[in-house]
Structure formats: structure tokens, C-alpha cells
């Protein structure tokens, strides 16, 4: 039975469980839900939950584990000499799997009958071609040992699948009956259901953690590879960033890190005051109408594609700055692309991150706080600065951190606005670049993908990850320290 069918059956069981469970619980309470411990719907959900959750969990685990078990047992039975020169067991196994899958697909599409598929032999038919015709690619021709293994694989798999189907449906039924058996008036259905909901919440929270794990895993191997090719010391403490194709690149990350910091700082110096003042104005001073219009308008700033900002930096802001700070003006600036250009434009993009979130948080501060302050003869601005903002601080810090994060992660504006020069300089009118920009450029560049010049992207990603982690930990402690809770 295909997995989708099993899912449909489980779903049907859940619906049935809900209806029957609810009914039975009500019946046990003499039809009056006031005698029930929990609301009737909780009882229904309870039965549905027990019918489905364990079964789905089993199904999921089984689907992941079965192929592993089968391939290891097939691999074990593989004759030692059967692996040809220059190949490896894992490669052969992936061929085995592909052949096995291919035969299944062929049967499904009617290219082979089930018996034919079970009895094909390596010599008789050109399997590679026949599988090819149903869209299954094989890395090399199929020899008999692979074919045997594939047949074995198919046999195990179909047995496994049968057992799985029985086990899952059995478990579902057991859960169903168990759930039904508990349908008594005094049964604490709500607690169980809420535990399940809580488990869901935990699961959702753990997705964030899993993402982190995933990111680390998808970066770590290539990072290690990079450090095998390039000395870590030079990477972390090198003052020059000069990749070159012929080898002999200098890949010191400090200039990039400095650029990242510098640009983010300027961006925040623009976005935080503007955003915060805008938020304050919107939530404290603006008429509801103005707020209803201005807030979403500002939010549009967050939605303009960054490439537009990049072009804006390159074509408008850069030349403007040059005309003021360039040779004709103060002579601090050589060209339009500079930290300042990118920082300013990025700051504009980040305004809504600060303004909209802060506005919501400020708006949530209870009116009694304001009344308390105004009643003492404070001006509105004093109230805002000394009472409302401190009360809203944790949320505002969150918004600012989000903006900072966005600044660190931004590429397009940096590429177009700040130039691609990796440089350690204090002058904000110099061109610089950031870690993120370089991750993108090295990753999409032309260097040999196994060379340090390409792999450095992963090391940069990893390092940036660790650094921002550190910054976030610091931020957490600061927020803890200044947190104010109203009421």
C-alpha cells in the first residue's frame, strides 16, 4: 500500500476518532458536558491524537530507518571482489539502489511487467538502456552482482513495506481503541491534548535549532577542507584579502570583518534613530489615520528588492556623496562606492525593521503608564523617553538586533554601493566590502570548486556565524539586565 494511502486511512481514522470519542465522552457524562472534566472537543481530539500520532511517528521513523537497514544488509552480502577498481562500496550501493528503484519505476510505468522485473538478468537485456527509457540514470553499466543486489534490495524493501503497513495500521488501531477506552467523564482529556499541543510547540521551536545544526553541517565539511588547504592563522589574522586563481592567494578575513562591522554600524546609525523616532511618532503622536497610512508605507521600504537599493546607491547616493566629499568638495572621497554610500542606503532599507516592530511594542505599553507620567506634569516626550521606552526596551532591542542582523547579511547593496575592495581603513569614504558579499562572490565565482578560493566561502560563513553568535549572547545579557516589566 503506498504511503499516501496509509496517510489517508490514518486521517480517516482521526476524523472517526474525533467524532466517536466526543460522543462517547458525552454519553459517559450522561449527555451533559458540565459533568465532563474537559470540553467535549478535547475528548474527540484525544482519540484522534492517539489514533494518529504514534502511527505517524512510527511511519516516519520506519521510512527513514528501513532503507538504511536494508542497504547495510545488502551491502554486507556483497561479494568482496565485486567492486571494481576506482569505485567504492558506497558508489556501487547507490547504483544498486538506483537499479532497484528503476525497476520499480519501470513496473509502475508499465515498461516491464512485475515478473519480468523480478527475473531480468544482466546479460539478457540491456538494463541501463531500459531503465534509461523510464528516466532512471545509472553511472555505469550494470553487472550481475549489482543486479543481484538490486533484486535482493527490492525483495527486502517490499517485505519491509508490508510489515510497516501492518505495524502502522495496527498501531493506529490500538491507539484508537486505547483512546476510546479512556473516554470517561473524569478523564483529563484537556491535559493530554495540551501536552500534545505543547509537544508541537516544542517541535516548532526545535526547527530553529535544527536549522542551526543544518547550517553548521552544511558548512563544516567544506570549512575543514579549507583549513586543510589554507592555514587557519593566516585566515583569521591575515590583514590582506587577495584571492587569485593561480594559487598563492592571501585570504585574511580581517578586512572583510572590519568592512562588515563598519557598514553595519553606519547602517544602524541611520536606521535606529530614524526608525525609532518614526516609531515613537507613529505610536504616540500621529493621528490614527496618519499612522494607518505612514506605517505600511514605511514597510514598503523593507520590501523593495535590494538590487534597487544597490542601484540607488550606485547611481544616486554615490555621486551625490562624491559631489560633497569628493575632490571638488572636502576631498575625502575617491569614488562613489564607499562604506558611507552602502551604509546610508542600507540604513534606509532597515528603517521599517526598527520602526514597525518598535511601533507595535510601544503601542502595547499600557495607557496607565503614560497616564501616570503625564499626571505628574511630564511632557509627552519625557513620558516617552523615561517611561514608555524603558518599558518597551526588550522589544525594541529585539527589533534593532533584527535590523543589525539584516545589515550583516546583506549583499547586493554592499556589492553595488561599497565596492568590492577588501580594505582595512578608518575612512568611511573608502571602498570596502563585507564578509557576506565575499561569501557570495567566492561561491559563485570561477575558481576551481575544490580550491581554497572557493572553499573560503564556507569558512567565512562559519566564522561569521560564530561571531554573530557571540554578539547575540552579549545582547541577551544586556537585555536581561535592563528588562523592565510593567505591572
Amino acid at each position, binding site marked *: 500500500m503506498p504511503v499516501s494511502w496509509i496517510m489517508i486511512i490514518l486521517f480517516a481514522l482521526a476524523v472517526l476518532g474525533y467524532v466517536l470519542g466526543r460522543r462517547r465522552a458525552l454519553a459517559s457524562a450522561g449527555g451533559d458536558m458540565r459533568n465532563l472534566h474537559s470540553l467535549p472537543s478535547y475528548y474527540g481530539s484525544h482519540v484522534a491524537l492517539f489514533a494518529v500520532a504514534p502511527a505517524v511517528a512510527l511511519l516516519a521513523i520506519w521510512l527513514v530507518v528501513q532503507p538504511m537497514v536494508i542497504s547495510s544488509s545488502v551491502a554486507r552480502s556483497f561479494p568482496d571482489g565485486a567492486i571494481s577498481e576506482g569505485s567504492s562500496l558506497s558508489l556501487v550501493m547507490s547504483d544498486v539502489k538506483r537499479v532497484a528503484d528503476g525497476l520499480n519505476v519501470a513496473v509502475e510505468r508499465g515498461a516491464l511487467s512485475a515478473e519480468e522485473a523480478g527475473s531480468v538478468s544482466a546479460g539478457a537485456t540491456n538494463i541501463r538502456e531500459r531503465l534509461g527509457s523510464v*528516466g*532512471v540514470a545509472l553511472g555505469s553499466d550494470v553487472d550481475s552482482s549489482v543486479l543481484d543486489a538490486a533484486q535482493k534490495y527490492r525483495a527486502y524493501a517490499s517485505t519491509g513495506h508490508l510489515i510497516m503497513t501492518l505495524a502502522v495500521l495496527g498501531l493506529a488501531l490500538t491507539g484508537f481503541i486505547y483512546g476510546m477506552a479512556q473516554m470517561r467523564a473524569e478523564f483529563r482529556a484537556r491535559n493530554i491534548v495540551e501536552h500534545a499541543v505543547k509537544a508541537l510547540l516544542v517541535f516548532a521551536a526545535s526547527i530553529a535549532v535544527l536549522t542551526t545544526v543544518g547550517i553548521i553541517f552544511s558548512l563544516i565539511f567544506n570549512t575543514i577542507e579549507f583549513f586543510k588547504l589554507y592555514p587557519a592563522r593566516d585566515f583569521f589574522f591575515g590583514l590582506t584579502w587577495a584571492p587569485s*586563481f593561480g594559487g*598563492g592567494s592571501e585570504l585574511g578575513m580581517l578586512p572583510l570583518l572590519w568592512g562588515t562591522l563598519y557598514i553595519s554600524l553606519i547602517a544602524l546609525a541611520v536606521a535606529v534613530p530614524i526608525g525609532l523616532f518614526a516609531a515613537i511618532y507613529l505610536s504616540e503622536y500621529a493621528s490614527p489615520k496618519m499612522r494607518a497610512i505612514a506605517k505600511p508605507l514605511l514597510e514598503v521600504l523593507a520590501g523593495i528588492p535590494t538590487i534597487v537599493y544597490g542601484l540607488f546607491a550606485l547611481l544616486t547616493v554615490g555621486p551625490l556623496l562624491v559631489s560633497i566629499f569628493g575632490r571638488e568638495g572636502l576631498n575625502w572621497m575617491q569614488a562613489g562606492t564607499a562604506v558611507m554610500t552602502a551604509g546610508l542606503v542600507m540604513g534606509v532599507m532597515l528603517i521599517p525593521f526598527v520602526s514597525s516592530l518598535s511601533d507595535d511594542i510601544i503601542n502595547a505599553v499600557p495607557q496607565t503608564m503614560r497616564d501616570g507620567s503625564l499626571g505628574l506634569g511630564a511632557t509627552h516626550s519625557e513620558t516617552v523617553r523615561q517611561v514608555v521606552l524603558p518599558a518597551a526596551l526588550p522589544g525594541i532591542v529585539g527589533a534593532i538586533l533584527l535590523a543589525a542582523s539584516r545589515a550583516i547579511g546583506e549583499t547586493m547593496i554592499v556589492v553595488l554601493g561599497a*565596492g568590492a*575592495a577588501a580594505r582595512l581603513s578608518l575612512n568611511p569614504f573608502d571602498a570596502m566590502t563585507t564578509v557576506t558579499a565575499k561569501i557570495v*562572490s567566492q561561491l*559563485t565565482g570561477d575558481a576551481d570548486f575544490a580550491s581554497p578560493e*572557493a572553499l573560503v566561502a564556507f569558512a567565512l560563513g562559519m566564522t561569521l556565524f560564530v561571531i554573530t553568535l557571540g554578539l547575540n549572547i552579549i545582547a541577551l545579557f544586556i537585555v536581561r539586565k535592563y528588562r523592565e516589566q510593567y505591572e
Partner: protein
Amino acid sequence: RDNVQVAGSSTVLPYASIVAEAFGENFDFPTPVVESGGSSAGLKRFCEGVGENTIDIANASRAIREKEVKACAEAGVSEIIEVRIGYDGIVFASQLDGPEFTAFTPSDWYNALGQKVVVDGALVDNPHAQWSDFNADLPAVEIASFIPGTKHGTREVFEEKVLLQGCEDTGAMEAMISGGMSEDDAEAACMAVRTDGKSVDIDGDYTETLARIDSNPNGVGVFGLAFYENNTDTLKVATMSGVAPSTESIASGEYPVSRPLFFYIKKAHIGVIPGLKEFAEFFVSDEIAGPDGPLANYGLVSDPELGNTQSTVADEHTMGTNM
């Protein structure tokens, strides 16, 4: 999967997309998907392994490297067909109504951008501020050049065919070697670009270079021939060592700065992915890749040895085996 999946170089992308579009129009196969993302990223995905969830063709603006071939083989991609589709000309262009940048030599570029140059017989840190400082025929304007960033394969070509050449021509190379550098070091030093802001690396694409030149009248930029040909109304191109860039002069080898473009086919997918072989053959057919085909029309320098390429594809001739 019933469509051909192509990924890789953004330089090859325009050509591949022209072919893919025509292929979709003229064949019953669905239009191939051509992703961009860079030669390296494309080859990396190409070498992930065989099977439906991997790509069939990798475009590259350089030849696949030894190490990559090895990595490919380790992942089971052992049979690769290499197809050279033509050449990408690299040109030097400036604002149409900017200063008279009409003729360059490699020496000029080396003098303008090299880190160490020869002045009055001595090797010194590059002191040149204006083009006319070293070549009176060039305009007396600030040096402002926009060259491909170190991520671009074009940069490699620029370094080897222009800077290194210029380094030798101006005698800087000699001065370096006589100054005690090994030949390799000297070569590396020749290809080092000054970092004082006169030369700006462009990590983006030619559109960005164009925008930079738009906003800086004295700027000179490095472009692909195709890009230039589509923007002749805003750019003027300079000759290199007296040769004007054109598909003809590049094909004949007169114009020195160009690089070959390739794509790589996963042989294991031929016969499996419908239309793969047809697409490859269509790509290199005379109608398409020939000197009058739409590719050449768009700026690809068509390969004088296109015939060989066609038979490579037809025979599914993989790399590393003899013809």
C-alpha cells in the same frame, strides 16, 4: 524529470538560453532549464553524482580542472563530455563621449594598473596618476579602471593576456627577475594590481561596470564582446595592440584577449533524460553556433573547429579517452 537541467557560468548563460529557447520552439521536448550561478558552482553541482536530482549539463567559462574531474569521479560522475562552444572576446571600452580611449596596448594597462612599474629604468611603486603619464597618446585624465573582480574567470584572462604581457613588454618582468625574484614570483608580481583605488574590482556583472562608467566619464572598463555589441550606443571600444575586437578578429586569433567557453555533459544521463543529446547537438549545430547563427549574432566568437566539436557530441566522446 523530463526537462534538461543546465547550470553554471553566467557568461555562457546568454548563449545557452538562446539555444534553449530555440530548442523549445523547434522540438517536442520541454524547454531546458538553464540556471546561472557561476562556473564553479555549476561544476560543483554537476559533480554531485548521477541521477535525476543532479544536473545534466554544466556551463563553464573555463575548462574543468584536474581536481574537479577527480572530485567528479569520486562521486560517480566518471564519463564527462567536454564541449567547447566558442570564445568570449574581452574588450576595453569607455564612455562614448568621454576622453579618447581608442587604442591600448598591454603595456599601457600594465603601466596603469601594475603594482610595480619601470620608470626611467628603475622598478618603483606605480606612480602613475594619469594615462598620459606613461603614454602621451592617451588622454590626460585620471586613471579610473573597472576590471573584473577576483571571482571572475575573466580576471584570470585579463591578468595573463594583458598584465603579464604588459609586464614583459615594459621590461618590468626583466627588472624583477634581475632584482632577484624567481620567475614564478615575478609572474605573480606582474599580475598584482595596484590597490590605491585607481583600479576598481567589479564583483558584479557587466551591467555594473557599465553603470560605473556611466557615472564616471574617465572610466575605462572591461567588458565581454557580446555585452559591448549590445551597448554600442553608450560605449566606445578601444583597439588592443592595434586590433579592433570583433568576432572575426578574435576567431582568427589576431585580437589577443579572449577565452574559450565550454559545457560539460554527463554521459550517464544521455538516453535517460529526454532530449539531452538532442539539445547538445542542437547547441553545436551550424545553424546555431556557426558564424551566422544566432549565437555569433549575439556576440559569441564561433569556434573555427566547430566540426570537431559536433562529432565529439555525436559520438558521445568522453574526456580522458582518445578519439
